[in-house]
């Protein structure tokens, strides 16, 4: 099992969600995040005083998938989230030792 995590542009969330659903993913966790990569934030001006705001709003999306699906799910997220501009974000996978479904107590792939 693997955990696929994507940090993406907030306005791409709906497309990514639909694409994942179409690819058969049945659940995900979405949270608001802030951060920066190469785009390095933005500048605000108040009465002539400039402030650089280096952390910009992002959305973090997390999906647990069977190991063999991980690579294709990463591609699904990348394709749906891509705008081609700086600030599109990153997607990565990490191995997961075990998963338990709280309602039933099932473990492993059965809990996916």
């Amino acid at each position, binding site marked *: 099992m693997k955990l696929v995590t994507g940090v993406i542009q907030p306005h791409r969330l709906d497309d990514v969600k639909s694409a994942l659903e179409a690819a058969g993913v049945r659940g995900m966790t979405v949270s608001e995040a802030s951060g920066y990569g190469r785009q390095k934030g933005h500048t*605000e*001006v*108040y*009465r*002539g*005083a*400039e*402030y650089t*705001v280096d952390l910009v709003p992002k959305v973090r999306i997390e999906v647990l998938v069977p190991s063999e699906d991980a690579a294709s799910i990463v591609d699904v997220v990348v394709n749906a989230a891509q705008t081609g501009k700086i600030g599109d974000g990153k997607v990565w996978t990490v191995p997961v030792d075990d998963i338990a479904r709280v309602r039933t107590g099932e473990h492993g792939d059965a809990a996916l």
Partner: protein
Amino acid sequence: MELDTGVTAWMLTSASLVLLMTPGLALFYGGMVRGKSVLNMMMMSFGAMAVVGVIYVLWGWSMSYADQSFGGIVGNPIEQFGLGGGGVLDDAGEWVVDGGLPIIVDVGFQATFAIITVALISGAIADRVKFGTWMVFAGIWATLSYFPMAHMVWGGGLLSDEGPFVFGDAVPIDFAGGTVVHINAGVAALVLALIVGRRKGFGSEPIRPHNLPLVMLGAALLWFGWFGFNAGSAYGADGAAGLAWVNTTTATAAAILGWLITEKLRDGSATSLGAASGVVAGLVAITPAAGDVSPVGAIAIGAIAGVLSAFAVGLKFKLGFDDSLDVVGIHLVAGLWGTVALGFLATETGLLYGGGIEQLGVQVIIALVAVVFAGIVTLVIGLALKATMGWRISEEEEVSGIDLAVHSETAYETIQQGSVIKEVRA
């Protein structure tokens, strides 16, 4: 003279409009500070309403408008203390009427001016002063700086047309308070900002406005209330009031344009804070001139005020004084500009209307006297309070937020705080 119900009705309305300006100012200022100090900022305005609203009827009116004047500087505070002495209500129990208006209505109108002037100062010392010290300052400053200035300019004193600064046709012009209100408050703001000192993080950490829609709502209420301030200062429901109304709106509109164009060229964006600030700069600049310039003159006064103030608000960073919400950059600068501009643009006596240099000379003199008077008085009061009650809250309280430290409240509840609220005392 007989009572004029039209004038009286308009002046009661004007007094109510001007009173609304102070809560409007509380919103304007409150939105500009950080979320952890918005309540304190607004309380400084409401505190000024409380203190000055009481002392005005006790000795404020008498110090401003008593018949007995001490050297043309201040009226006798005892003569009409508590609105007695026959100036408001005569021996026969009749309301004294002047110019068709019962004096008691003028008392209300003038009290609202004293309140807003004190409240204006609070923007210079945001986020960091003891509430008790502010409340004491409000009462002492109104007594020693505002009431004398009102007497000098409007009460027949040193800076009025009965004073020494009258050269031929040129008499001092301050229609609605360029000297009494805006130069007075602007100088006090500068002096207090210097005495109180900078906020922690000033100039090094970003200190951003937390709610710009509040700032814009406040600016809108100030504009609305200012019709009472300026058109009410015509003391009539007539064409003179209409001229003041039109000039007030025209100058303010031009000032928005002046500020936004300056910002667009200099910073790249026309901002909402710039528009709201332009509103106030225009209103301030037209205040002394609203009844004595043409609407086209008002466009010039407003547009230049917007540009001047848009540049002036940057000075505090260069000079290193923390006038937190730019009371100096807006009220002092635009107040000085509006007062001096009358020398050029007054339709009766201004330079550009074929008058001589006299009007300009008179306007510069009354502006300078106001600056020196307010500067010295505020310096003495500010230092005295620093040595006795002290101005600053502790650094720890300032960082955690003055709302919680001083008022035991927070403006915006978060889920984390909400989850631990328990009723501990009914």
